[in-house]
């Protein structure tokens, strides 16, 4: 395929590919942003699960927040058995969550570090599995782990470039803090990614909320500029391309 033709990666989210010309551009960095409870992690994990089971694309999940046990349990609710994929070597879960007991307690930080360790850890799994999809869930937690945000911002760019260089598609999740207008705690999340998807779970009446999804940008693609309905079903996340949401 020509270098100038954009190859598409199926998202595994029913309805979403129709809004973005058939899938994410291969080798791009996509940001999934949203407030707590909007379904960011489910969407990212579904992308990995479907990639491994339906499109023969192994994946790597880097969890900085939730423990692997909780993630596996949550995804099992949708019939997605991540543990089975790990055993089949179609998925690697890199546990960098605070639940890890052997992690030493950080008592000091000097503004003279980089994230080359994270890069080495991720690329090691990418190589071993021949992974085509990588998810880092969630960027926000790094803002609480490290004080030197300027370094983190620069390092994110290097990290994303390094992971996607060989055509691996990278998904980053970012939690939008309450009462915040941006797309995450670093305020550079939108620049970092060539695609930005925002998930909403807005109150539409005193007794109900409505889930929706917006493709804020997707470089190199004609995408819907509307806000579409989205639901979390027993089979995971599903988007209704024809339904325009009034909730967001």
């Amino acid at each position, binding site marked *: 395929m020509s270098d100038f033709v954009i190859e598409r990666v199926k998202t595994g989210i029913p309805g979403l590919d129709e809004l973005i010309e058939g899938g994410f551009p291969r080798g791009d960095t996509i940001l999934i942003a949203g407030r707590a409870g909007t379904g960011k992690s489910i969407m990212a994990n579904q992308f990995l699960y479907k990639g491994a089971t339906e499109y023969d694309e192994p994946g790597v999940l880097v969890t900085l927040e939730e423990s692997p046990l909780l993630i596996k349990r949550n995804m099992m609710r949708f019939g997605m058995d991540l543990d089975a994929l790990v055993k089949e070597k179609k998925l690697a879960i890199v546990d960098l969550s605070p639940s890890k007991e052997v992690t030493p307690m950080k*008592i000091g930080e000097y503004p*003279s570090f980089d994230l080359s360790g994270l*890069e080495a850890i991720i690329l090691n799994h990418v190589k071993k599995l021949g992974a085509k999809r990588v998810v880092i869930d969630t960027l926000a937690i790094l803002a609480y782990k490290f004080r030197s945000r300027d370094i983190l911002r620069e390092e994110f760019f290097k990290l994303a470039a390094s992971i996607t260089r060989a055509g691996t598609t990278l998904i980053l999740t970012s939690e939008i803090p309450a009462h915040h207008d941006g797309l995450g705690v670093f305020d550079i999340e939108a620049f970092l990614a060539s695609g930005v998807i925002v998930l909403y779970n807005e109150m539409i009446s005193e007794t109900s909320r409505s889930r929706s999804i917006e493709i804020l940008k997707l470089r190199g693609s004609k995408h819907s500029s509307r806000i579409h309905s989205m639901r979390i079903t027993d089979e995971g996340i599903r988007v209704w391309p024809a339904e325009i949401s009034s909730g967001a």
Partner: protein
Amino acid sequence: MADDAEPKESPEGEDTEEDGPIEVVLFKSNSCAFCPRAEEVLRETLTDFGGGFFVLKVINVSENPEAAEEFGIFALPTTMIGGVSVTGIPEPDMIMKMILGAKVSSKRGASK
């Protein structure tokens, strides 16, 4: 510089013998610009304190990413002493504090 030693079994959860050497672990990588200076500072500081009391282990994450993953360490350089760590080029005072802390916990462990 070549690694001094391959990482051994996790020192976590094990009490160092009361008078045994204290293990100092430096995580570095080939591409990390700050790592050579961090290693230099560590070596100088440990020598000043009395080289015989310490064992410095250098883990090159580029060659051994599994070790960094095991300890959940991904920002480099990181220095780990007795269950606590510091990220970036450490100051000698900080290394001293960490060593004293490790010594106190090892004595507590020994007196249990």
